[in-house]
């Protein structure tokens, strides 16, 4: 086990000096390390070492499946198993993760640490709802098991706890039986944001998977036009007889120059993307990768943003704030000069068990913004509004929120810190994110 490389970065491009300690033996690799990192898909600094440390453990070589019951779907694996690997193994057999984020390039441990949600949050909740137990290596070095019945406080703090409660070594969860490995999909082009949000809410009543792509680069009058996507697992009789083959991935080989993804080009791309959706409503049986992971078809797509990188501002606006709040929020973003290259809107259901779990009933906005001199001010402004609405940000995406704002939007923080104090009083487990948002030592 030796350190690798000299710099680590989040998916958005935030980079710090640091190296990964990689080994097939994650328990040994994580010994004495402040954090474990999976496939590095946290957009901001959640998987980066704190300033006082230069290494983190890397889990991706610890990727063994330890048990699978083909009757109940109960499944156990080492935390470094990637979702892509898991899907390739189990989807052809009729089993799928009950909750999937928008990329397959995440590890099981990372999914638990972020308590990920997917297009079906309104019916399936976060991944935490389907996790039966975890094996953790605590800051003390002790390896323990926790679940809803055993050390429940630690279990709940670990779901969405961004790796700050213990190194996640193993995950036990239940997979979902699917009727076929194909998706019955519908997409509808809608010209108005208000109508789009209403359609999203209505579709969520009948469809397990729903999401919206919105064009926020369009001129103010047409801003928020977009496409509603909805889907469900196809019935066996409607699906092709053979299982879907893993899709080929085209790599972006190098970091693009900053001018490549300039606003006019993105505006143009969005216009084409919207206009080419003809007829207005389309339906069909599609590959699950196409439906769940459209961006995965381009490897390292983050390089398209150039050296400046990008950030994703993902927040949830509570249901009580209403659709009007979402509209106001997006108009404020535009007025402040925020060029949102990609916007995804989702419907969120009830809050999960994770103490710091992100979703709550309402509307989730995920906004990709190229980083520039005004990004910090923009995020501060959006956070001010968000706090007013009673919403919160998603730690797996965040890179710019300030500590006072986070405290103001996160009433559950005291509870999380209390559990953390119990299991790691010296805060030996810490990250760049916990230094920024929780006041951990630098």
């Amino acid at each position: 086990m030796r350190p690798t490389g000299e710099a680590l970065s989040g998916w958005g491009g935030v980079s710090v000096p640091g190296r990964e300690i990689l080994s097939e033996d994650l328990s040994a690799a994580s010994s004495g390390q402040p954090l474990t990192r999976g496939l590095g898909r946290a957009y901001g600094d959640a998987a980066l070492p704190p300033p006082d440390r230069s290494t983190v453990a890397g889990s991706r070589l610890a990727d063994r499946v330890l048990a699978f019951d083909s009757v109940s779907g109960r499944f156990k694996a080492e935390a470094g198993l990637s979702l892509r690997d898991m899907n390739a193994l189990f989807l052809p057999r009729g089993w799928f993760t009950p909750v999937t984020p928008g990329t397959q390039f995440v590890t099981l441990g990372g999914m638990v640490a972020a308590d990920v949600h997917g297009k079906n949050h309104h019916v399936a909740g976060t991944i935490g709802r389907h996790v039966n137990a975890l094996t953790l290596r605590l800051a003390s070095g002790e390896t323990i098991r926790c679940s809803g019945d055993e050390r429940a406080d630690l279990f709940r703090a670990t779901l969405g706890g961004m790796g700050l409660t213990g190194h996640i070594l193993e995950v036990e969860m239940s997979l979902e039986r699917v009727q076929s490995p194909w998706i019955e999909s519908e997409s509808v082009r809608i010209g108005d944001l208000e109508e789009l949000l209403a359609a999203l809410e209505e579709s969520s009543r009948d469809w397990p998977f729903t999401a919206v792509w919105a064009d926020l680069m369009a001129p103010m009058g047409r801003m928020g036009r977009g496409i509603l996507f909805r889907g469900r697992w196809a019935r066996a009789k409607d699906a092709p007889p053979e299982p879907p083959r893993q899709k080929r991935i085209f790599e972006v080989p190098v970091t693009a120059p900053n001018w490549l993804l300039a606003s006019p080009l993105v505006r143009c791309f969005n216009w084409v993307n919207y206009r080419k959706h003809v007829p207005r409503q389309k339906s069909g049986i599609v590959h699950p990768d196409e439906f769940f992971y459209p961006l995965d078809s381009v490897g390292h797509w983050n390089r398209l943003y150039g050296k400046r990188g990008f950030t994703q501002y993902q927040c949830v606006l509570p249901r009580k704030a209403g659709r009007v709040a979402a509209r106001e929020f997006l108009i404020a973003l535009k007025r402040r000069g925020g060029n949102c290259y990609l916007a995804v809107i989702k419907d969120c259901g009830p809050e999960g068990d994770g103490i710091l779990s992100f979703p709550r009933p309402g509307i989730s906005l995920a906004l990709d913004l190229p980083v520039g001199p005004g990004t910090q001010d923009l995020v501060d402004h959006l956070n001010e509004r968000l706090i007013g609405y009673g919403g919160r940000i998603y730690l797996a995406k965040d890179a710019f929120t300030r500590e006072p704002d986070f405290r103001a939007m996160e009433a559950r923080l005291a509870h999380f810190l209390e559990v953390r104090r119990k299991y790691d009083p010296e805060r030996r487990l810490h990250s760049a994110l916990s230094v920024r948002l929780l006041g951990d030592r630098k």
Partner: protein
Amino acid sequence: MRVVILGATKGIGRAVGRSLAGRGDALVILGRDPEDLERSARDLEARKRGDDGNPVGTAFCDLADRSSFAPALSSALEQLGGIDVIVVTAGAFAPQADLEGDPALAERVLDTNFTATVLFLEAARKLLLSLGGGTICALSSVAGERGRKPVVLYGASKAGLTRYLEGLDHKFHDQGLTVVTVKPGFVRTGMTAGLPAPPFAGDPELVARDIVRAIDWGRAEIYTPWPWR
């Protein structure tokens, strides 16, 4: 195909095991840590094509303990009811500077990669010939091709292994023994973590695919990934 693998719990060996399990081959894996072996066996069972329900067998074998070789191979034979292929991916690596500064470490690396591996393969060769023939596949390295400053000692140990495998092929090929010498270049595994990856560094899954193809085709020698030739 009935395959025995020494070194399947980690790195390239793990990937070879998965590749073979994925197409339904019967496997017994050998190693020195029983718990680690069991975890890898469960992983390979989960990856078996068709979920045939047949367990992946395990047996204790430690390259540092010569007395473990024969019992391990006997156990594998008993569990599989016959053996077609024996694969050895186990080995040891340390950077040249570490080896120069620590004679005990140098001795361990030289012994593991050459003496112990050759003695294990001698036991494997005898067993396969007694069964009427079969395939031996062992991982040497491109580092054994010529003396280079960063891998003087490691390269020497692999050079010795390569020559042994070459001789084995010449001597026993006519008796039904196929010998596949694998010469990987830089492969991103736990063993090489921390070393700067050169151009054309490979991933274990792709290297494993080449190795399995070489076993199927009975190739005497392969370089993988191919640009390392």
